[in-house]
């Protein structure tokens, strides 16, 4: 039995977009990444799972029970941190632990105290006197103190400093090692990449990617930066499977986004080719071995590129080629083709 199972989950806020046909299956002991830009539908899906919203169609179950009908029972074993944490101004960590202990019918004080030390949190400071980061820590400690079998975290690292973010990651890995399940929602790919086993990407309310991190990485493109020798011209033809993002002194070239060029030092723009290779790169490596370039840099498969590709329409970026001796090739619709 899956810990979380949704099928055909649909919900709309009147005219506003909600989610459409979201189907997920998350198993016990898994750290599942739920990725998407702001407003994509991550929080709506989570709110349905937490029994706050009622889906207009489809089914959402946790531990095999319906999230709307058996919400209170399910939540006995679920810890939740909302995306935009708001707590009562009068609440202190100790008071929160006391109230939650009464609700859960067992003492959470000792677990809470240990977590407070780990997260460097003053247990008697009221929320109204806390910074945003500390409020986030209170919410995390209160969610973790119950030692839930399922932890649902909606952008939990926002407002946390890097050290506390690391502490949280360690905590989450420890919990997963104990067989506890974590649904980790974020719009920051790097933290999901470093933590999760599988991920789902949501865009415009629909799931657009749903796979293991390993499979996604196998599909992710590599960035290759070629530095030409002085007076060398780029090859007239590139091998199959190579997507040219930028090359100098040739008509028709255009970087897929302005950001692609940020990795090239401005002084080297007229000598640099920027390529993208997806899948097996052995053929390309053989080809490149026969060339006489000044330098070649091959990057690791980047989920970031895949991720941004999924959200291309949501990005508001300048697609104009820079002034100077750059060239323009529109490659956005011809992934993997030589242009």
């Amino acid at each position, binding site marked *: 039995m899956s810990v979380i199972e949704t099928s055909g989950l649909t919900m709309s*806020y009147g005219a506003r977009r909600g989610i459409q046909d979201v189907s997920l299956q998350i198993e016990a002991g898994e750290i599942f990444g739920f990725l998407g830009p702001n407003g994509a539908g991550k*929080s709506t899906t989570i*709110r349905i799972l*937490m*029994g*706050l*919203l*009622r889906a207009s169609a489809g089914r959402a179950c946790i531990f095999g029970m319906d999230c709307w009908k058996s*919400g*209170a*029972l399910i*939540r*006995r074993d*679920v810890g*939740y941190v*909302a*995306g*935009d944490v*708001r*707590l*009562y101004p*009068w*609440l202190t960590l100790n*008071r929160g632990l*006391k*109230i*939650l*202990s*009464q*609700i*859960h019918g067992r003492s959470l004080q000792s677990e809470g105290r240990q977590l407070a030390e780990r997260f460097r949190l003053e247990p008697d400071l009221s929320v109204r006197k806390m910074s945003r980061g500390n409020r986030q820590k209170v*919410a995390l400690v209160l969610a973790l103190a119950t030692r839930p079998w399922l932890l649902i975290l909606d952008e939990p690292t926002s407002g946390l400093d890097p050290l506390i973010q690391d502490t949280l990651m360690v905590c989450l890995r420890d919990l997963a090692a104990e067989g506890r399940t974590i649904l980790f929602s974020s719009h920051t790919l790097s933290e999901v990449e470093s933590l999760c086993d599988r991920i789902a990407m949501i865009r415009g309310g629909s799931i657009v990617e749903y796979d293991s991190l390993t499979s996604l990485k196998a599909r992710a493109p590599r960035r290759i930066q070629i530095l030409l020798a002085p007076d060398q011209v780029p090859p007239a033809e590139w091998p199959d499977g190579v997507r040219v993002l930028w090359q100098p002194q040739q008509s028709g070239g255009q970087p897929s986004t302005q950001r692609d060029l940020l990795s090239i030092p401005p002084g080297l723009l007229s000598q640099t080719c920027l390529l993208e290779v997806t899948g097996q790169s052995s053929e390309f490596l053989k080809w490149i071995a026969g060339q006489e370039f000044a330098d070649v840099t091959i990057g690791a498969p980047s989920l970031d590129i895949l991720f941004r590709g999924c959200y291309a329409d949501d990005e508001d970026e300048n697609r104009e080629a820079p002034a100077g001796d750059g060239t323009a090739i529109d490659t956005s619709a011809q992934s993997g083709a030589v242009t």
Partner: protein
Amino acid sequence: MRGLLSKIVAEVLWPVLWFCLGLFVIMGLLTALLPKVLGNIHEVFDNMPLVKPLITALLGVDPGNQISAQLSQAFLWTHPTLLTLLWAHELMYCSRMPAGEIDRGTADFLLCQPVTRVQIFLAESIGWLVSGAVILSCGCAGHLLASGFVHPEMRLPFRSALLVLGNLAAVYLAVGGLAFLLSACSDRRGRAVGIVFAVLLLSFLLNFLAQFQEWAKSISWLSIMEYYRPAIVIQSGLFPTSDVQTLLGLAAFSWTTALVVFHRRSICTV
């Protein structure tokens, strides 16, 4: 349920204590001072003709040119300060959940605990009933304490005070039930409070207009104040059973509907 009650106590303890103190002081002062002030009311009636219909609207009976001892004590129980304090507490308390929780974004924290919405609503209702009982008792205590300093002829018999208090408690329940209902239907606390406030204001206005206008008189049964007439209760010495039944009916309907709405609705804090 204990955890929910602890949360409610942490949230409303100080405001409730302030309301208790306020009502205690106000009722004491009014009990001691009103007989003296109202002794010369005929002069006020002569100089300001609008005051008489206003007092008639508040009391529910025409006081004539002189206000008797009994009517002066009835005026105490309909004094705007008493009603304002009581209703301010109710509007503050009953609009907290769910409208207030949604408004300030804390609904996520509360509703994601392992408790049902029915349990949350019942805990809130217990707090509402207990705080109302404590506040009304403090007001009554202030009145009884100050009665010791009033001329014996001007004192309201304890039994009459209890009858009026029972009627006032029914008003408290009706207004609170309405506030719960509007809070359950709304995502904005200000909107819920505003509508209840408007209903109360219209009730006063309708009662006032009913003194002069036939059309207003014909629909005055819509006003909550129509079912709270301490002067008649004090004069007759009888418990206003039908008025209290009407108010309790309104309270029960509003409260039950609020519970059903809160139980069934989607809650969105974004």
